[in-house]
Structure formats: C-alpha cells, structure tokens
C-alpha cells in the first residue's frame, strides 16, 4: 500500500439511484491538506458524490455500480457499517446545509456536543472540550450557549455549531455541503472565512459542495464543475473561473448578472446547439407619466406585540415602466414592504394608493386588484399542485378578461407561450415541471390580470443560475414590451443592480440608503450598504 499524496481518490465513479445512472465516470483527487469545490446546478450529482464520501449513499437507496473511491487508500465503496463507524467523524466529517433540521430540536447544544465528544474523543473532559470546540469556531459566550436549544440560535451561529460538531473527532477531511446557502451574505462571508482559517490551523482537507461559483473562490484553490452526473471541467479555481474551457462552465459564468453590462440580456446556453446566445430585447419605450401607479405615503408595519416596527414609515412612488429594487438581509422588512405594496397586507401606518385609491377601499372584484401582481419566491409552492399551467392561467383569464370556455384555454396557451413555457409543459402538473418552468407559470398567471406593476419577491433565489438568467431576461423583456413597472425584492445585489434603476437598501425595517442602483452599489454612502457590497461573493469581469 503506497502512501499517496492524495487523501481522497475517486476514479470513474458511477452511481445508480432509483434506477437512474445519476453519476457517470467521475474522477477527482483531494490532496492532503488541500481543498476541492464541487460545483453544479441541481441534479448535477454533486450532493450524491458527497454521500459516497460520507457513507450516506445507502440511506437514500443509492448504489455505486462502477469505479472506486478511496480515503487514505481505504476502500469507501465496499466499506461495511463497522468500518464506516470508524471513518465517520474521526476521518471524514460532514457539515450539512440545513443547520436547523440537522440538530435535534429537543436536545440542548451541550447535550449534542457531549454525545458527539464522548463517542469520538472518549476520555476527554466533555465540558472543557465543548468549550474549546465552540471557541474554535469563534462562537461568543460558549458556556451560556451550552444551555441553549438549536432554535434559539441564529442561522450563522447554528452553522458554526455544525462545524464545531464536525471538528469534535479531529477529522482529516471535512465535507461541507452548501454550508452557507441559507445564510445572509454578511454571515456567509464570516463562515467561509472560518472554514478557510480552520484549514490553516488544523491542516485538514476540505470538500466543498456549492452551486455558486463565486463562493468557491473564497475557500478552495481547485474546482470541479459537474453537470447531469458528469464532471465537465476541473482545475485551479482561478483558471476555471477566469478562463474556462468547457461551454457549460462558460454558460454558468455568462449567466451571472454581475458579469454582464447592466440591463442587458444574459447569455443562455442553447441545449441543442451547445452554444451561448443572448436574446434580443425590444427597445424600452417610456412615455412620460407624471402620475405614479402606486404611491405609498408613510407606510409602516408594526406587528402585534412586536418590540420594534417591521417596517418604519417610508414613502415610495412607482410609475409605469419603473424598476425599483428593495435589498436587504433576512429580517430587514423587505418582504413585508413588498406585500404591503401589492395590498396583500394592510400597513399599520400610512396608506398605499393605487391610482389614487387606497388598498383599504379596493374590493376583491375591483379591476385595480389586478393592476398590481406578485411573483413568489417558491415557484412550486405558489402553484396549485393538481392543476395544469393552462388551467391555472385560464382561471385568472376568465376572471379578469371576460373570456369564456375554450377561448380562455387558448388565451392561456398564448400567454404561456409568451413567457417561454414549452408546449408539452402546459398540460403537465407543477410536480412535473422544473423550478424555472414553474416560475414562468407564476409570471404568466400574474400577466393574466393585465397588471401595470409586478412585485417579485426573491423571484430567482430558489432557481439555478441558468434558470435565473432566463427568468431575469423574461422580466426585462416584459418590462420593455408592456411598459410594466418592476419591483424586485431580493437579497442578491447583483440581481438588483442588473435589473433596477433605483434601489432601496433596508436594514432592521428602515431604509438606510436609496438612490440610483448603479451608484449605490459602486460607491455606497452608508456603512451597512458598504458591508453588504463587500460581503457579496462576486466574480470579476474578465472580458
């Protein structure tokens, strides 16, 4: 048995899951003390690959049917459960994505640390070691933390705790599965930095699973790009992100809004030709319209029993064809503001006037109801699961456009075609559609009301980057063609900068900065905005 420089060697790996070959011919190495990032969109097989290395493949019913995977020359593919118990935690440890559901809700933090330490580090003083681990991941007031339950911690603190639990057995490899996906950007930056620092301190290796190319640059010196179960490109992070060879990697980069000139269509990979193409946008027509469609005057929201307002009183005007961005982290009040603008929620302060009429006086059957429509974050959850896109849109058309019978179904088909839903998807239930397709249906349903304003709450944050590019292109086209006003609520600065003319930055329910999007994100005035901008992982424009 030769001691290799590589801690992990994966050769021609193939995995069968539910009768499908989900991983095909994947090979990569992780050097001792080195790091590798596996990047890909949903369904690329990156998480399944991580399961092979953590021995969790059989839990989802998967089976390795070709190739090998070794850890320190030890066979992982055929390891039995006793061998895995020696490996897990001690040699390979997992930092999972969902920190809240990855902790037992009814056991104190101290208890969860204690059971892990007594298993992996028998003989250690449990309390001392617990405090040491919490300290190692830079958690403040560790002694008090031991008494807390998981739900009492913030997302960032929980993710640090997951890292502390993973470190308990002093493993040689940490597999971090999208460790920062659910976190705010400022917290994400800290957690990524922590992972990098821990690598230096302990000399451990890291396998990072990510969907975001920009995150990778912050933690790993090499990257492997996966697509549809295959590894399409691997190499040094700088090379792959700066000068990729494979058309799919190029497409992933081209789809990123921060790499394209503001307001221009994003490049999309054509599945058939394998070529990148940029759709044309019609020229934006902007007739002067002095009277805003929505005028929010002093609107604020204070929930019952809340200590502070969710939204402090503020003013916004939205005119035809405008594009306004509302940016902030979780708890900033941005979604509440979005809901107030659509009239889904009545403010506790001030009024929202829609063409001069307050939402309070707009009845359900008032045509004004249709004038402002919403696009939701969870595109799948926003659709009735047992109805087809055509039925979903037709129902709204029948309601708002006075059509009957077959005519509504035809009009629905036209509208779905306009938002780019393939014909064969129109009569499938949402369960059989991709996230991007579901979001197109959501947009078509909103358009069926013939709105003048679309409020989109994180419209692309649950979508893959290529689907995001397509949805953003669609929204830009609709805005230009129909002179629609867009209000985009998002945590993603790149999306806001690309899509909007004016931006509001919110923190703790207050607007901390507002102004032209191009200016706010290039030379922010406010400290918080500056912090947001510097925390956001971005790729530099190379071309």
């Amino acid at each position, binding site marked *: 048995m030769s001691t290799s420089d590589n801690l992990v060697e994966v050769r021609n790996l193939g995995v069968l899951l539910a009768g499908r070959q989900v991983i095909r011919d994947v090979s990569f190495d992780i050097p001792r003390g080195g790091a590798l990032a596996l990047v890909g969109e949903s369904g690329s097989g990156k998480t399944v690959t991580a399961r092979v290395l*953590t*021995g*969790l493949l059989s*839990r989802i019913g998967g089976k390795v049917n070709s190739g090998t995977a070794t850890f320190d020359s030890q066979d992982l593919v055929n390891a039995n459960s006793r061998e895995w*118990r*020696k*490996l*897990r*935690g*001690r040699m390979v*440890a*997992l930092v*999972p994505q*969902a920190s809240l*559901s*990855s*902790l*037992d*809700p*009814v*056991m104190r933090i101290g208890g969860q640390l204690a*059971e*892990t330490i007594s*298993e*992996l580090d028998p003989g250690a003083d449990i309390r001392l070691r617990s405090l040491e681990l919490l300290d190692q991941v830079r958690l403040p007031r560790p002694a008090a933390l031991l008494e807390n*339950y998981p*739900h*009492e911690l913030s997302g960032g603190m929980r993710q640090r705790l*997951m890292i502390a*639990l*993973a470190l*308990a*057995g002093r493993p040689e490899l940490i597999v971090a599965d999208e460790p920062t996906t659910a976190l705010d950007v400022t917290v994400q930056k800290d957690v990524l930095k922590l992972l990098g620092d821990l690598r230096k301190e302990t000399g451990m290796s890291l396998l990072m699973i990510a969907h975001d190319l920009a995150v990778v640059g912050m933690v790993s010196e090499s990257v492997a790009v996966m697509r549809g179960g295959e590894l399409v490109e691997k190499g040094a992070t700088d090379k792959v992100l700066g000068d990729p060879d494979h058309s799919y990697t190029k497409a992933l980069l081209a789809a990123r809004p921060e790499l394209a000139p503001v307001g221009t269509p994003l490049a999309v990979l054509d599945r058939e030709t394998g070529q990148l193409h940029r759709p044309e946008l019609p020229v934006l027509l902007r007739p002067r319209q002095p009277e805003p469609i929505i005028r929010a005057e002093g609107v604020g929201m204070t929930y019952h*029993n809340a200590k502070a307002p969710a939204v402090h009183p503020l003013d916004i005007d939205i005119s035809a064809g405008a594009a306004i961005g509302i940016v902030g982290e979780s708890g900033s009040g941005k979604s509440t503001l979005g809901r107030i603008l659509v009239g889904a929620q009545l403010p506790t302060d001030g009024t929202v006037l829609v063409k001069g009429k307050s939402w309070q006086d707009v009845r359900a059957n008032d045509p004004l109801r249709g004038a402002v429509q919403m696009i939701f974050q969870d595109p799948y959850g926003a659709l009735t699961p047992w109805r087809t896109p055509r039925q979903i849109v037709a129902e709204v058309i029948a309601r708002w456009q006075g059509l009957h019978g077959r005519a509504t179904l035809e009009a629905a088909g036209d509208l779905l075609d306009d938002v780019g839903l393939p014909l064969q998807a129109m009569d499938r239930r949402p369960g059989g559609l991709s996230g991007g397709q579901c979001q197109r249906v959501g947009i078509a349903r909103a358009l069926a009301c013939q709105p003048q304003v679309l409020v989109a709450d994180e419209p692309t944050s649950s979508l893959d980057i290529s689907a995001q590019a397509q949805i953003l292109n669609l929204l830009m086209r609709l805005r230009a063609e129909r002179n629609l006003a867009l209000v985009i609520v998002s945590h993603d600065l790149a999306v806001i900068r690309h899509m909007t003319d004016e931006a509001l930055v919110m923190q703790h329910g207050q607007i901390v900065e507002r102004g032209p999007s191009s200016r706010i994100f290039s030379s922010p005035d406010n400290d918080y905005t500056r912090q947001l901008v510097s925390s956001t992982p971005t790729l530099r424009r190379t071309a």
Partner: protein
Amino acid sequence: MTLRAGWGQAAGKVGQSLLTLASVIVLVFLLVRLIPGDPVTTILGSETSAEAEAALRTALHLDVPPVQQFFDYIAGLLHGDLGQSAVQRGDSVSGIIAGALPTTLSIVAVGMLLSTIAGISLGLAAALSPYKAIDLTVRTIVMLLYATPTFLIGLLLTLVFSIQLGWLPAGGWAGSYPDNFPFLVLPGIALSGHLGPIIARTVRQAAIESSQQLYMEAALSRGLSKSALNFRHILPNSVLPIITLLGISFGSLLTGAIIVEAVFGLPGIGSEMTKAVARRDYPVIQGIALMSACAVIVGNLLAELIYPLVDPRARSAS
C-alpha cells in the same frame, strides 16, 4: 423565552379553560330545563299524587323563578353542592359522585398507563424496522384491537383469564387498597384496547418521521451508533405527540370506563350514570355530566400546560 412569558401563556390557557367551564355550567343548567314537558311529571310518571309532585318540585328547586334557580345553582356549585338525588332520597349528588369516582379514576389511570407503555413499546418496535415482519405483526394486532369493541375485549378477557385460567377475578370490587388491585387488571386492559392502538400508531409514525430527519443523518455522519441515536433522539422526539393525545383522550377514556364498568360490574361513575338514566334522576345526570366535562377540560389543559415543558420550541413560540 422568558419565564414571565411562560407564566403569561399558562395563565391565558387557564383563563380559556375557565371560560369553557362557565359555558358548560350554563349548558348543564339548561339541560334539565330544556327537556320537553315538566321534569317532575317526567320523573314521577303520570300515576302520582299532587303532594309527591310538590315535594319533588321543591327538592329539584323548581318552585322558584328560573333566574333565581340559576343563581342558586351557581351558589351551590361554589360550595361544592350539586343538589340532591331525585330518586335516592337523602343522598347528595356530590356524595354519589365522590363515592363512585375513585373506582372510575383507578380504571382510567390503569388504562392510560397500560396504553402508554404498550403503545410506545409497540410503536417503537414497529418503527425501528419499518415494513419488516415485526412492523407488520404489530400493525395487524393493533388494527385488530382497535376494531374490536371494548365490551367484547372485556368479555374475551374474562373468558380466558377468569373462567378458563382462573388467574383474575371476573368482576367485582374489594372496596379498599391493596385488595382492589386484582380487580383493576382486566378492566384496565380492556380500556386500553382503544387508546393503546392509537398511541402505537402515533409513535410509529413519529418515530419513522424522526428517523428520516436530517439530524439523524447528521448525527450518523459524526460516527454515533444507531442504538444511541434510537434511544437519545428518536425516542424523545416520537413521544412528544403522546402528551397531546393523552389530554384529548381523557374524555373518551371516561366514556370507555362506563362500558368497562358495566362488563365487570364495578361500582364506578359508569354504573351510577346507567342507574341515574334508567331512573331519570336528573340531578345526578346533571352532576355527572358536569364532572365529565370538567375532566375533559382539565385533561386538555394539563396537556397544553405540560407540552411546553417537554418541547423547548413550544416555549418560545409566542
């Protein structure tokens, strides 16, 4: 999640229960007054003397205006006075209930205990190897038990354990502890034939769900052994729903106890209720109805108060 907030929540729940209790008292009061016709003639029948009617009317306190009746009734309740039996002269309703209640509560307690122990064990055993032989056997037995009426279970138990094997008495009551214990076993088992299966199914479901949770996978990935995980994580998480279940089931256990008492000839609330209904002893029916309602309210209240103590998430959810 301050202690003060916890007390405030608890006070709110107690207040809600008191409101429910108040409306139950009003309903129970109206019960007698809403019976079509005159309660006195309903009780005594048509072949009776005017003196007897007048005496009963006074005894039932029906000779004063309804509003005064209501306030007198409330005043009585506050003193623990539920009135006098209309049939057993000289016996107070509270005396009758106090005499019968311990027997019924003993059966209910034994039934709850057996249901919980058997339900949790069977449910967990089934969940730890889902869709395997143990699981299928447990689920079949549990379904059969659940589908069998309580009185039939009681009769079968008597047939096997009393008549054939002669291990336990077929019925009756010693009247004092510890002599009562042998008389409690079969009624307790019979009573748990309904609740036990519900608990077993709930625990099985919860345990299967919790074994699929990410925290199980995360713990597994830290090298913890399966048996440790089952004991420390699955067990506590799957027992949580039982608390609510027991609170809700308290009422149906009382109802079940009436049938079990009849089968085993026990001198409990059930037999008093059956007697009172047969004799149209309205004050007693009224008193027992009020007591059962109280039991249901208290059962639910206890479950609501205990749950946050066990599930930390329920403590901070305002």
